[in-house]
């Protein structure tokens, strides 16, 4: 399910000349490549002066790791559980209000349950009951096979997800909404009440809530259980690419739904939703951890360096350079920081050295001290 877009921006521009340059210069290119990460590594690991430069401030750098006090840790954990619950509520709302009434199957256990509840004629096996059975079964399976790796967070999310959907269905929220507004809700060909008469609009909400909610849960290091447990089991015992495996399961569910509902419209919506969800999930996860890569070309590096170290509390890499037009001696500072910090740094640099040249780009993936490990 994870179609990672490594570098959204740089992806669309390896035009022929660059590619050829890489091709013809293979050993060099590879090496240049490997020298690049080294630099950025340095930027985030330690305050190291590249070249002959000595950094004026040689305080021990504990700043990068930002050691958390127990209180901060507790707040962080509490926040994680809140975000996780919010994510699950969004996912449940997506399933109950937008997916089920329109028979959209966006994959996962919810999709399978929508399908099965339409196939099985027994009244008792409603969507939420089927979902509960599958989810609990998968959880037990996960606990047996995966043991500790099937974490408390996943158990919590999976159960909360099931309970909320069951509650919504049990209390018949849509029915109440229907009777509380004067004109009543429109109902579709399957005899279900839908919030609007616009399936496309409902599809967008289904994807948005499901994608954003899923990303929130994922970012807290949890999962909503269900097919993710199957993926983990597959990962443990086979060498299969679990992303592909999950996508195949979801595709099978959607394909079966074509025959069950006998409606091309629903099938097309489901296919669209499946892919849109994957992209949205990835881009939300990517943008949560997004950081800025800042290059500052300046003649007054000392003050700026001080500010980066003491106020923003990040490391940096510095090297000598020469202005192309003026042939003036300059310093280049490279650092990586969060978006808010980048804004502060930008303002400060302008104040300290109005002649400085600052380039800010998005950095999508960073390895090194003080960064990474968003999962």
């Amino acid at each position, binding site marked *: 399910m994870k179609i990672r877009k490594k570098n959204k921006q740089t992806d669309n521009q390896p035009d022929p000349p660059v590619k050829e340059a890489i091709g013809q210069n293979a050993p060099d290119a590879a*090496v240049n490549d490997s020298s690049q990460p080294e630099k950025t590594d340095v930027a985030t690991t330690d305050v190291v002066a590249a070249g002959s430069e000595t950094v004026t401030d040689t305080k021990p750098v504990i700043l990068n790791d930002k050691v958390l006090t127990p209180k901060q840790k507790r707040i962080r954990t509490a926040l994680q559980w809140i975000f996780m619950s919010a994510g699950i509520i969004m996912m449940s709302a997506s399933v109950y209000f937008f997916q089920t009434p329109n028979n959209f199957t966006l994959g996962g256990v919810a999709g399978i349950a929508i399908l099965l509840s339409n196939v099985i004629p027994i009244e008792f096996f409603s969507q939420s009951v089927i979902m509960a059975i599958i989810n609990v079964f998968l959880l037990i399976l996960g606990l047996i096979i995966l043991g500790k790796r099937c974490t408390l967070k996943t158990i919590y999310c999976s159960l909360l997800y099931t309970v909320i959907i069951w509650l919504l269905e049990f209390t018949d929220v849509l029915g109440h909404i229907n009777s509380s507004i004067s004109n009543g809700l429109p109902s579709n060909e399957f005899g279900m009440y839908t919030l609007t*008469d616009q399936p496309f609009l409902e599809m967008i909400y289904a994807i948005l809530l499901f994608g954003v909610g899923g990303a929130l849960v994922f970012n807290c290091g949890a999962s909503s259980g269900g097919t993710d447990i199957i993926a983990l089991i597959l990962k443990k015992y086979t060498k299969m690419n679990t992303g592909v495996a999950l996508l195949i399961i979801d595709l099978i569910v959607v394909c079966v739904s074509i025959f069950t509902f006998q409606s091309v419209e629903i099938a097309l919506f489901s296919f669209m939703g499946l892919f849109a969800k994957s992209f949205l999930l990835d881009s939300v996860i990517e943008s949560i951890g997004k950081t800025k890569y800042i290059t500052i070309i300046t003649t007054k590096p000392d003050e700026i360096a001080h500010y980066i170290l003491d106020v923003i509390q990040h490391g940096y890499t510095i*090297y000598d350079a020469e202005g192309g037009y003026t042939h003036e001696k300059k310093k280049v500072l490279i650092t990586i920081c969060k978006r808010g910090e980048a804004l502060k740094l930008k303002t400060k640099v302008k104040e300290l050295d109005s002649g400085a040249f*600052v*380039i800010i780009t998005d950095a999508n993936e960073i390895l090194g001290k003080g960064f990474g490990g968003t999962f």
Partner: protein
Amino acid sequence: MKRKVTKNEVLYWVVLNLGTLLLAAGVYFFKAPNNFATGGVSGLSIILANFTKGVPWLGQTEIMTIINVVLLIIGFIFLGRGCGFKTAYCSLVYTGEMQLMKLIPIQLPLTDEIFLEFVFAMLLTSAGSAIIFNCRASSGGTDIVALIIKKYTKMDVGTALLITDFLIAASTFFIFDIRTGLLSLLGLFAKAFLVDGVIENIGKSKCVTIITEKAEEITPFIIEAMHRGYTSFKATGGFTGAEKTVILTVCKRGEALKLKMRIHSADPAAFVILTDTNEIIGKGFRDTL
């Protein structure tokens, strides 16, 4: 003393007027007929117009004009010159254009495809807002309220505006119907992304890093043909150990293409990295602050 009007100034006002026209068209043809209240003064006027249906001389455009003019007057009282001539101009032209559009004798809404109307409403108003914003002007309305709040309190203006917009959009659930509510709420979020996207694209430049052994053949091109500066530093190739020069420069997208071609003919072995950059501070580029 006579001031000469430059070509750039004319272009600036043409672009600014285009922005207000897009905004007015989006609100008049698509937002108001479908009750898409995605926040702001236009959203507020759409909701208020629903309560004054019995009064023929008090439609959506009239309410909007009244609110905007009142806000402008308040703005001038509290902010003085800080309110800005451009804001007053945009605000008045915006509402004026809507009054003129009322004279066009067509049946609204234009289609019965509500989602299509929604897409056009969001595209037109977002593009218009982005253009006006990029001209460092504002269409008045809630922006004036924000400026006043900013001047007298320490409140976070962005959050305050977002909450107001959210309340306006959410109220459509109860005043109109669920469909309108869902669309208005979606529009509120879509607007934020669209405006940001358009503004980012307008200012987008390429940051070019060139690793080469023939710097002297590439640098004259950057300075003489492209009229850009660059920064260079010495480096060593990791595999060959050869002395190399790293050239760092920033230019517009079109220029980057030319530079790439030039590098390719001057030094086919050069290694070139291009990245998108949306914020640059320094000589020759737009100041984002």
